[in-house]
């Protein structure tokens, strides 16, 4: 019973704040809604029993990416955003595309109906660490190279031009 209450509250938070991200006119409001939505997704991860992913979502998304986007909104936003039209004129075809997507997405759960969790969630940190430093060590190192390259690229793009 408590599981249902938690799930539906998290789902309401996620969907309402996602609608806020997409539909609110002010980019600042959208960025704040994005932080709320990412925190709701972190709650879903916690309710699914994956503790490390929950912590990573909070650390990277809510306190990293959302704050970074807020900085850029403060730098690149303007007061006229609130009164400018934020939806382009192709919203009707986009709505039809999204209707097709939601129709097909909501047919997928029928194939997996009635599957419940067989066991209680267990801590996963030790197993994840073993996998990352064992079988998946090569992808782990590759992803660190990707992070290094993206950091270098970001510094290169964002630096002031030498006069």
């Amino acid at each position, binding site marked *: 019973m408590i599981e249902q209450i938690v799930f539906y509250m998290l789902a309401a938070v996620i969907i309402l704040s996602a609608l806020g991200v997409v539909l609110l006119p002010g980019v600042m409001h959208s960025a704040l809604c994005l932080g709320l939505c990412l925190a709701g997704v972190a709650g879903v991860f916690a309710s699914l029993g*994956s503790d490390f992913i929950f912590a990573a979502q909070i650390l990277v*998304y809510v306190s990293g990416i959302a704050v970074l986007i807020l900085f850029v909104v403060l730098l690149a936003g303007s007061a006229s955003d609130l009164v400018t039209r934020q939806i382009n004129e192709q919203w009707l075809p986009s*709505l039809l595309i999204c209707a097709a997507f939601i129709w097909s997405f909501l047919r997928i759960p029928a194939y997996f109906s009635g599957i419940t969790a067989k066991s209680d*969630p267990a801590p996963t940190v030790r197993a994840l660490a073993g996998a*990352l430093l064992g079988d998946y060590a090569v992808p782990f190192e590759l992803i660190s190279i990707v992070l290094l390259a993206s950091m270098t690229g970001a510094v290169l793009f964002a630096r002031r031009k030498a006069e």
Partner: protein
Amino acid sequence: MTLSHYLALSGVLFTIGLFGVLTRRNIIGILMSIELLLNAANINFVAFNRFLYPGQHLGQLSVIFVITLAAAEVVVGLALVMAIYKNLKSAYVEDYNILKG
């Protein structure tokens, strides 16, 4: 809760994000909508891992890689946005036509 609930939630979240990608005029809004898409995929990874393969962790490993790549993507994307904004003084994508030959 069953697997179907989580799949439906992630489908709805993906569709909202897709609508944002297709219709926002602001480049920062488009980047935020892409984050919604990635999060919908992450919910699916973790839900399939929990319900269909309990005791294994490959789905959660994939989520770690997706989160890392999303961080890299948003950092490079925002740096590009700031570089373009310094030149054009606009955050709206229809003004971004400086690649025209």
